[in-house]
């Protein structure tokens, strides 16, 4: 249980980190909190020849808001999401999801960008970024680009980020005031990997669903956007929503796998139930008069 040998640098600037990533030609791995990466290194599932530590890199952490989005620096600790009143008011879904990431001890070190960039399929933050329509800010020596979270994930721990690119921040769009929070996770114990999870937001205007962003985690090789369910919900009168039917649509977008914790069929059945129940509770709770 010891990592294979590697070199290590802790660049003080983003430019320095990008230079190392470009020079390494795919042999480098960025480390931030290390709460996902260190187990992979210890188990030798990941064997980079150089680690680029961004913990002391200037400009990588912090939470700021503008009129349309919240920008969260990639190296912002997950624990920082839970002690920020402004964030709780502006991004309630994100804060709710953050309470379920790992444990107190891992949230103290784990970062927002680390979880999103590595792409564990059962993790909360990748699915939250997909559900809410987040954009990933990525830099390399070639320049900057933005990637839509829903187009970022290709498979377990596989994303569209290039080897010379560094995730610097995640932009979560501001949803309208009064947005309904949707979150439910089923795990064997608190802090364990989710067997099935659902996260998202609904916005109701004039008694009808005007905006819907819903995604699954632990239900396939990547976080999965519940596109059919979102489409079916849009424009619907809140009283007319049939949660069981929408849940069936949502489950039909998933591709759960079997492991020693649960069968694929179990995941689908539990997913259908929690989707229907969570949707029904969310709409009844917040239904405008």
């Amino acid at each position, binding site marked *: 249980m010891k990592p294979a040998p590697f070199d290590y640098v802790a660049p003080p600037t983003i430019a320095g980190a990008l230079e190392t990533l470009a020079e390494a030609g795919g042999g480098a791995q960025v480390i931030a909190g290390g709460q996902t990466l260190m187990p992979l290194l210890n188990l030798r599932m990941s064997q980079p020849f150089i680690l680029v530590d961004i913990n002391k890199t200037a400009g990588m952490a912090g939470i700021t808001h503008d009129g349309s989005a919240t920008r969260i620096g990639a190296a912002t600790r997950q624990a920082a999401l839970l002690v920020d009143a402004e964030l709780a008011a502006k991004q309630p879904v994100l804060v709710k999801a953050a309470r379920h990431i790992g444990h*107190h001890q891992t949230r103290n070190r784990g970062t927002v960008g680390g979880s999103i960039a590595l792409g564990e399929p059962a993790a909360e933050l990748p699915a939250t970024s997909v559900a809410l329509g987040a954009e990933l800010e990525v830099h390399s020596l070639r320049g900057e680009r933005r990637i839509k979270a829903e187009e970022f994930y290709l498979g377990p721990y596989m994303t569209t980020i290039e080897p010379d690119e560094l995730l610097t921040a995640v932009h979560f769009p501001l949803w309208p005031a009064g947005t309904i929070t949707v979150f439910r996770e089923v795990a064997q114990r608190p802090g364990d990997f989710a067997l099935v999870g659902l996260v998202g937001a609904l916005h109701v205007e004039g008694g009808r669903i005007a905006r819907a962003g819903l995604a699954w985690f632990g239900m396939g090789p990547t976080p999965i956007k519940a596109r059919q369910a979102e489409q079916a919900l849009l424009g619907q009168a809140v009283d007319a929503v049939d949660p069981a039917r929408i849940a069936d649509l949502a489950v039909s977008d998933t591709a759960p796998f079997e492991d020693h914790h649960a069968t694929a069929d179990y995941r689908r059945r539990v997913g259908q139930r929690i989707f229907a129940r969570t949707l029904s509770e969310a709409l009844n709770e917040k239904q405008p008069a």
Partner: protein
Amino acid sequence: MSDHRIELTVNGQRLAETVEARKSLGDFLRGDAGCTGVHLGCEHGVCGACTVIVDGVAVRSCLMLAVQADGAEITTVEGLAKSDGSFHPVQQAMRDCHGLQCGFCTPGVLMTMAALTPEGGHAREEELLAAMSGHICRCTGYQGIRRAIRQLAGKNDAAAGAHA
């Protein structure tokens, strides 16, 4: 593989050592700093036995590299008791409430408790109970740990129930 010079404070003592990049903080604390109270169990962040306090917060020492602790202030279980040997409140609570059996998970449990118990004050019971999800006690001695948490939260019935 690169070697790195690090300087850090462990239990109030200033240390300067050269470490291989891949060495975990847990291995450094046990092997180089002599803090064998840091118990490495699973070495992939699941069991919580290796938990130490880094710059005021509880973290897994198996999920952090020693080189990343350059400049940090670290407390291990060895740093909890006072120099005269008298217990830290979290140690006293675990003793009063029979909060340990084999003791392997105990140093990690103590460090999470210590990080979340304000000096001279009471811990918040719900917060501490939730944080205990980050520790596995393979003796399943959780009831004693729960009683210790109640004592730390200032609920005085805890010690009385220790033998129940």
